[in-house]
């Protein structure tokens, strides 16, 4: 009476274990392949200028919208502007509605692909949610270009605090 029960318990445990391993294996495989295809790397305008950024792969850039660079294409919902880390700048073209807090001279983050002609085709443009907040990507770009102090004033330690 006792033995079959123990064996059944063992078999059940084995089945559950195999099922769990199968689930874990599937998840790992899914995750790894997805990472390969869908990990989006961040690049600064200087990376792009130094040709460190891959062409025609989904990526994310960040920096400030260069003063005086915003142009609207006549009659189409298309805008062009330049994103700068104050050392280098990338031309960006975007078809769509700019976020509410998009301004020249302010921080911006864009998702999209770098075309072979050096123009960044943005599929998504993100500005801040809030007047007093700078996206970490923008801070990162400015820190890497060594121009952080020019924006926030000397002696200020990144990241910027709201209060």
């Amino acid at each position, binding site marked *: 009476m006792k033995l079959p*029960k123990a064996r*059944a*318990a063992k078999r*059940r445990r084995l*089945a*559950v274990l195999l*099922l*769990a391993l199968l*689930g*874990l294996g*599937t*998840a790992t495989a*899914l*995750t790894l*392949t*997805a*990472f390969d*295809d*869908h*990990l*989006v*790397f*961040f690049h600064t305008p200087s990376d792009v200028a130094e040709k460190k950024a891959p062409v025609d792969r*989904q990526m*994310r850039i960040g920096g400030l919208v260069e*003063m005086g660079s*915003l142009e*609207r294409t*006549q*009659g*189409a*919902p298309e*805008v062009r502007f330049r994103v700068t880390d104050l050392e280098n700048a990338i031309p960006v073209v975007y*078809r*769509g*509605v*700019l976020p*509410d*807090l*998009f*301004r*020249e*001279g302010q921080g911006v*983050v864009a*998702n999209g692909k770098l075309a072979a002609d050096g123009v960044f085709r943005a599929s998504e443009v993100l500005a*801040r*949610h*809030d*007047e007093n*907040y700078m*996206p*970490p*990507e923008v801070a*990162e770009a400015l820190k890497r270009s060594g121009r952080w102090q020019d924006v926030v004033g000397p002696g200020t330690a990144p*990241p*910027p*605090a*709201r*209060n």
Partner: protein
Amino acid sequence: MIAELGHYALVLALCVALAQSIVPLAGAQKGDPALMATAKPAAYAQFLLVALAFGCLIHAFVVSDFTVENVVRNSHSQKPMLYKVSGAWGNHEGSMVLWSLILALFGASVAAFGRNLPPGLKARTLSIQAMIGVAFLAFIVFTSNPFERVLPPPPDGQDLNPLLQDPGLAFHPPLLYVGYVGFSIVFAFAMAALIEGRVDAAWARWVRPWTLAAWASLTAGIALGSWWAYYELGWGGWWFWDPVENASFMPWLVGAALLHSAIVAEKRDALKTWTILLAILAFALSLIGTFLVRSGILTSVHAFAVDPQRGVFILAIIVVAIGGSLALYAWRAPMLKGGGLFQPISREGALVLNNLLLATATATVFIGTLYPLFLEALGGAKVSVGPPFFNATFVPLMVPLLLAVSFGPLLGWKRADLAGALQRLRAALVLSVAAIVVTLWMDHGRNLIAAAAIGLAAWLFFGAWVEWAERVKLFRAPWATVWERAVNLPRAAWGMTIAHAGVGLMVLGITGSTAWQSESIKMMRPGERFDLAGYTFVFKGTERREGPNFFATRGVFEVYKGERLYATMTPEKRLFPVAGTTTTEASIRTNILADLYLTIGDPEGGGQPGSPGAPAFIVMAGSDTPWTVRAYHNPLVPWIWLGSLVMVLGAGVSLTDRRHRVGAPRRMAAPGAMPAAAE
């Protein structure tokens, strides 16, 4: 004076919580009923004190007391009353007070309603709950005092972030917190059970209503947040796999797994250690979610303040809570005896499958959410993980889960017959195939995956009702009998059917809006028109409008379906001068089957500097300049939220089941005080 009273109440609450976290636990360990009995009044006192503090904070916001720094930074005298009140928790400090309030409320509820809990379990649970209270109250008192004064007081406040000035968002944080914090009670129960070394059917039955309540509010909170993102952010999307969304989604997934594994623990006395582990994980993920969202390491509207000290404090709470609980688990869990045996094909087996898939799905979301942070912390490249990653990992895991949902309830405990279950599900199968065929026909066979997904939605919806129909003998007994059986059906069974049907409705909405959304972006002059999804939009012009604390430009559009005027839509852009921000207000017209969604962007020449004062969209209101107009047709999208609502309804119905009524069940063996019995 009132602000000082609030602060004082918080400090007192901290002291009470400190006592509550030690005395009853010590009493339970020594078997001293007098010490254990202190848990109840302490839990009440803690709740009343935090409620007093919260009341003081709301008072400060309502009367616009600008000597309080928090009010200055987050309110304005001209703000509508609803947002003055909701502003009290629309900021870091206040939201933490709300968190502690709900924590104390749950503690007090266990003290009040857990009359039939064994005194030892109750005392231990309340002590653990108080320890969490100590952590969060100390966090508030030492790093985030909401009652900080500023002298001299400024004449007026800086206003709440306008994106947060929204009725949906006024209730989003409280609902989400009830969910997060609800898992704290389940966590406390799990810890108490581990200390006692005993988990039985009665324990699982006590835990289930709390899990249900927490999970239902989390569902409602997430749905509300997603709805808000849909109508307020103006992108026409409802879920972005944003880390902030994932932060609330992970505890939800684990909570759903916990709901199901607790059934096995209750009915079959199996999966007990796993259930305990899920209880720990649900709360751990709630804490991690809070940390991610509030610490400012993520860019989002939720990151109120970037203060390293606070982040470190929350991180310390997480490390202690998760590390401590997992250590206790590792030490005590092996002592819990495993229960009933079952075949892989059985109700238990189906619930195990549910748990495995939900846990694995949580793991993929966890990796996708935290990997960029880890990589950055380790000095690696700066990366981000977007929707494509989650679509490639999360969605494939959900398909087998959703296919299995309809089988689960039809399988018997211990061992079951899969072919027999499929036989009983043939009605659902026929209807699902019909749904696929109709979809393909309406879509002209263009999107096979979407048609299959619609079939899946039908499978879920009708599968849920097949089981119900069997139980009430629909079509097989006279109507009077059916009615009687339906009325007498346990509420928990009703709840399951409704919730599973709700999942089907949600899948319907997700599929429809993902597969058949159509979009149009145009520059339009007043008088121009465009077509989208069989509707004609005519742009009549723009006009200026003034709100209580904003100026707005409103676009007026007439929407025609054929010759008939179908709707007038008025999307807006608003300028909040005090906060210095603008927001987009989408205009949405729904007929339940589909939404028309319209926003206006900038006029031509907008966005450039050199227009000091009002931005271009205010200046140019009423002029003849072209405006950016964006329109969406979102088929079936309302069913995402209606489906979530139905899921919440199901959980609510289940909560009213007599067997789940808190305190109703008694532990079979030992009704009296039980000293720690770890065997």
